[in-house]
């Protein structure tokens, strides 16, 4: 394993330190934590519902890169692929509460759900009103009442954008939670990997793929997917993912938003080529794409791969998606 790091144990604090020091006008670190909170001038002036997200590190720029006016109020970084602890989340909640309550945006992993839950209980003891929405956009995993359910993956960035914009516009906590759930229900993602990520403490890739193989349906923590197949031209990959995702939308009229997301080790060049194929295929299917975004938004360390997110969006959401924000990475 070759990585530009120092000690494996220092990865997250050093990364957060690098991030806040190179963006001091936008964010600051909460003392004694790896949580990052807005530091812009508007933050204290315009009171709003606090929006806190977080999770394991390794998905940068998620979440700290989305802290800023119009998006998150704070983000909490756990160890690599490890949910942050409740006390850190609690600190972030306390730092952003402006009396109108705090919405927690959690990706659906048992660790994240449990730690955010414990933090919520701690904050409620301080009479802070808390609501939680749990993002589970990854349709490569079967859903069921009796299982962990679907994972939260790249769609999280879109959820954070919409909720952040709505919160800035003055929406109250209860309405934000309702909106958030609606957005989540309308957001579907599948990812593919060409090469697995290497967790620094493990030192080798999470799984091996042959030189001509890709894995369909991977998660953002090296979770294996539903099929290993030969790699195919980008347009066939795009068609395959679109097919799977569009099956989830009974009503294909109206506005859709798309996100083509690089997993960390895949160049922008390939992401744009893939996006071009996605737009071709959606046009052929007469699906109206009213918002699109391409880039490394929700990564998985050095994984080579890509994910496609499609959201059935109403026009207010499209407006929220398009609104300018002041963040490091949106």
């Amino acid at each position, binding site marked *: 394993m070759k990585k530009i790091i120092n000690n494996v144990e220092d990865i997250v604090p050093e990364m957060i330190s690098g991030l806040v020091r190179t963006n001091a006008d936008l964010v600051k670190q909460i003392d004694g934590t790896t949580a990052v909170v807005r530091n812009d001038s508007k933050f204290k002036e315009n009171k709003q519902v606090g929006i806190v997200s977080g999770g394991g590190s390794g998905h940068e720029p998620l979440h700290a890169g989305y802290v800023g006016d119009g998006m998150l109020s704070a983000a909490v970084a756990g*160890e690599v692929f*490890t949910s942050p602890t409740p006390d850190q989340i609690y600190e972030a909640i306390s730092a952003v509460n402006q009396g109108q309550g705090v919405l927690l945006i959690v990706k659906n992993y048992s*660790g994240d759900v*449990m*730690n955010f839950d414990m933090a919520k209980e701690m904050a409620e003891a301080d009479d802070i009103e808390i609501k939680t929405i749990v993002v589970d956009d990854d349709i490569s995993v079967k859903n069921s009442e009796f299982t*962990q359910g679907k994972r939260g993956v790249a769609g999280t960035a879109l959820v954070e954008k919409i909720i952040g914009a709505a919160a800035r516009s003055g929406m109250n906590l209860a309405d934000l939670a309702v909106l958030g759930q609606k957005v989540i229900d309308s957001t579907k993602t599948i990812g593919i990997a060409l090469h697995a990520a290497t*967790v620094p*403490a493990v030192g080798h890739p999470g799984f091996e793929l042959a030189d001509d193989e890709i894995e369909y349906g991977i*998660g953002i923590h*090296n979770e294996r997917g539903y099929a290993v197949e030969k790699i195919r031209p980008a347009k066939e990959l795009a068609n395959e993912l679109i097919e799977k995702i569009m099956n989830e939308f009974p009503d294909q009229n109206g506005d859709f938003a798309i996100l083509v997301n690089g997993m960390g080790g895949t160049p922008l060049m390939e992401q744009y080529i893939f996006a071009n194929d996605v737009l071709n295929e959606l046009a052929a299917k007469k699906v109206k794409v009213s918002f699109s975004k391409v880039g490394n938004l929700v990564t998985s360390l050095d994984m080579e791969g890509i994910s496609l997110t499609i959201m059935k969006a109403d026009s207010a959401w499209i407006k929220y998606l398009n609104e300018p924000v002041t963040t490091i990475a949106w």
Partner: protein
Amino acid sequence: MKLELVDAKKWINLFVEKLEKNQTDLNELDTAIGDGDHGTNMKRGAEAITAAFEKKDPENLSDLYKATAFAMIQKVGGASGPLYGTAFLDMSKAVKTDNLELGDLLQIGTDGLKRRGESDTGMKTMIDVWQPVSDALKVNKFDQKVIDNALENVKNLVATKGRASYLEEKSKGHIDPGAQSSAYLFESLIEIMGA
């Protein structure tokens, strides 16, 4: 049988030792069906427990379990932090006034896991080790075999909770990392009880 402070402290210390020794193995188990960090997580927890004991030597059973719980909750994160943390926190509360039989104590811990994880036996998690160990202790039939059987059983289960559940059928044939770290916990207990 009940565990008094001295032995309980030895128990946790032995657990800590095993976690530190087996970090890589736990990471590899987690790499196969999870995200590769369970060993690193538990190692961080182990160090936090040691630090807590050094900072303030626990004076009674309740403090011991509470310090263990807090170390787990505050330093581990992931799924295992809140799970182990909740189990030990509930155990700490249970022994506040009176010590309990080990089987009853661990049942309280197991119930904590189930509550926190919204889960139960048969889902291929650490609960599949905690529950049979608690059961065996209640009827005084606890030995290494109980742990071995539990791990063997866990191996053949299909995961429905935790990260391994995303693999569905493909999770079969692998030992759940949390089950393995719990096995270390209860193997430490055997060593104490034997002594």
